[in-house]
């Protein structure tokens, strides 16, 4: 239960093509994360899978069955919206039980399932409250509860944590990962957040302008980005790109080196630079440097690295961590 495959799926709004035609295979039980810049069509793709938008072309198969024209409710998918979309006039109990009530399940059975979901999500004490009387995290959990009770073939999440504060976000991230471990249900998750994508995903799909740039495991994308876009998009702080003579020395139009793959030294190294802003986080130090003959770069030293604005330091890239890109932006193996 829960494999989804998209075949040449495309979406056109009026005369703007949002998704030009895309193939994607999502295996049963996988946690797939869609990432990409704002407006690249992540939400649209998710809504196409959910059935909230009609495809302009192509085929969506769920569990090997053509689901392209099936109504949203019949696809067996559950969606958690960014705004949670709880029903404000219903208690938490009614909210979670709503899909079951619509499925004409009998009352005792609904109660049993709702209470089961509530205990998984720590909502038992809040069942009689209205959504307006809950905190953001609790509302989020109600929205997830409403999805769980349906026993869906797959969960769809559209930026579910973006309305929460940083600490709660970390919590909910763990809870959702935990839930995935427990249920082993396919999950498709849209996010802007690097950390969410890297930590939760079995498979990341990087989108740009409705096209898939690369699909792979988080570490795959980190170590072997297929092109400059993916290289720049995955990883934080962003990869440094160097063009010109320095790139030519490596037989490439551009080379990329991640901030964490630059060794810093006060005495010797390949390149010499001036420290601009130094961000001391305690566990790490991010340095924004101006490197002679190359330009602006970011470097990351683990632990404390005692420099301040205007200091001159040396840095050398780790040779095996240099990514080379051709003139077309694709990676050179």
């Amino acid at each position, binding site marked *: 239960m829960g494999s989804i495959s998209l075949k040449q799926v495309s979406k056109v709004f009026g005369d703007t093509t949002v998704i030009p035609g895309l193939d994607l295979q999502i295996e049963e039980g996988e946690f797939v994360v869609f990432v990409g810049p704002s407006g690249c069509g992540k939400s649209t793709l998710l809504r196409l899978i959910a059935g909230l938008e009609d495809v302009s072309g192509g085929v969506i198969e769920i569990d090997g069955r053509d689901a392209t024209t099936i109504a949203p409710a019949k696809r067996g998918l559950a969606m958690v919206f960014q705004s949670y*979309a709880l029903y404000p006039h219903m208690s938490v109990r009614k909210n979670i039980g709503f899909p079951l009530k*619509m499925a004409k399940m009998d009352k005792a059975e609904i109660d049993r399932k709702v209470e089961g979901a509530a205990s998984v999500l720590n909502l038992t004490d809040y069942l009689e409250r209205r959504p307006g009387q809950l905190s953001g995290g609790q509302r989020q959990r109600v929205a997830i509860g409403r999805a769980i009770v349906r026993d869906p073939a797959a969960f769809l999440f559209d930026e579910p944590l973006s309305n929460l504060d940083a600490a709660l976000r970390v919590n909910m991230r763990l809870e959702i990962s935990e839930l995935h471990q427990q249920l082993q249900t396919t999950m498709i998750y849209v996010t802007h957040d690097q950390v969410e994508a890297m930590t939760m995903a079995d498979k990341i799909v990087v989108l740009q302008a409705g096209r898939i740039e690369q699909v792979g495991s988080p570490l795959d994308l980190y170590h072997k980005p297929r092109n400059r876009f993916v290289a720049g998009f995955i990883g934080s702080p962003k990869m440094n790109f160097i063009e010109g003579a320095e790139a030519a020395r490596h037989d490439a139009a551009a080379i990329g080196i991640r901030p964490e793959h630059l060794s810093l030294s006060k005495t010797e190294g390949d390149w010499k630079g001036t420290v601009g802003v130094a961000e001391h986080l305690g566990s790490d130090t991010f340095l924004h440097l101006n490197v002679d003959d190359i330009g602006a770069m970011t470097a990351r030293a683990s632990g404390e690295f005692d420099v301040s604005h205007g200091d001159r330091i040396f840095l050398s890239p780790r040779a095996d961590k240099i990514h080379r890109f051709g003139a077309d932006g694709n990676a050179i193996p």
Partner: protein
Amino acid sequence: MSTRQTRTAARLMMSPAVVLLLGWMIIPLSMTIYFSFLRYNLLMPGTEEWAGLMNYRFFLTDPAFFSAMGNTLLLVGGVLTITVLGGIALGLLLDQPFFGQGIVRILVIAPFFVMPTVSALVWKNMFMNPVNGLFAHAAKFLGMQPYDFLAVSPLFSIILIVAWQWLPFSTLILLTALQSLDSEQKEASEMDGAGPVSQFIHIVLPHLSRAITVVILIQTIFLLSVFAEILVTTNGGPGYASTNITYLVYAQSLLQFDVGGGSAGGIVAVILANIVAIFLMRMIGKNLEV
């Protein structure tokens, strides 16, 4: 300290308005109450004298009073039913995207801008007239007897006219309420398996409940005092068939020149309106709480 000062200042600044409003309300009210205890007939000036509760006794035991009260409730209830149901239906229709939406919306609102006397006259002479009215023509075209609306079922005809005037108001309020429904909620319910009907019952209607409450409360206030439509069309007749309390007060005090009786009727109307208001707030007021 600073809040205390601004509060005092605010009270000072507001007091002229409050005094004005209070005077505006208190003076006519107390004069009405005073008159209601007098034997005061304009045909016999100078003979005013204290009458105690006589005016009230006459007004409340008058058979016309009970039929007027029934008519008032029928009028209010009938118009509310038509406008709320019609308003929801029209709101749902107008909420759909269609060609010429802007123009149609303005047209729907138009009746609200027509004066009650004018619209009542138009209905009386152009639509309901048994000889020249459009309805009569339509009936004749279909080979049926024309129906003399205002003579045969006067109260129902007035309900129709008033409902026609108030339909735009409820449509407008309910339409804006419909438009404020979060589309993600609709989509969520769609994914939860709610068809159009259960979506309407479980999502849309509860969302509208507050707007419906506002429509009912505001309309009730105005509908309790419908007057022009009755004066222009039926004059409260035949008999007392279309007389409501407001019209009865008018008939008492101005047609019979009995200021004392009319004032008593006015006070009774005020008390009745308050009873209706209390009932309404009890029944649906909780919808307005956040």
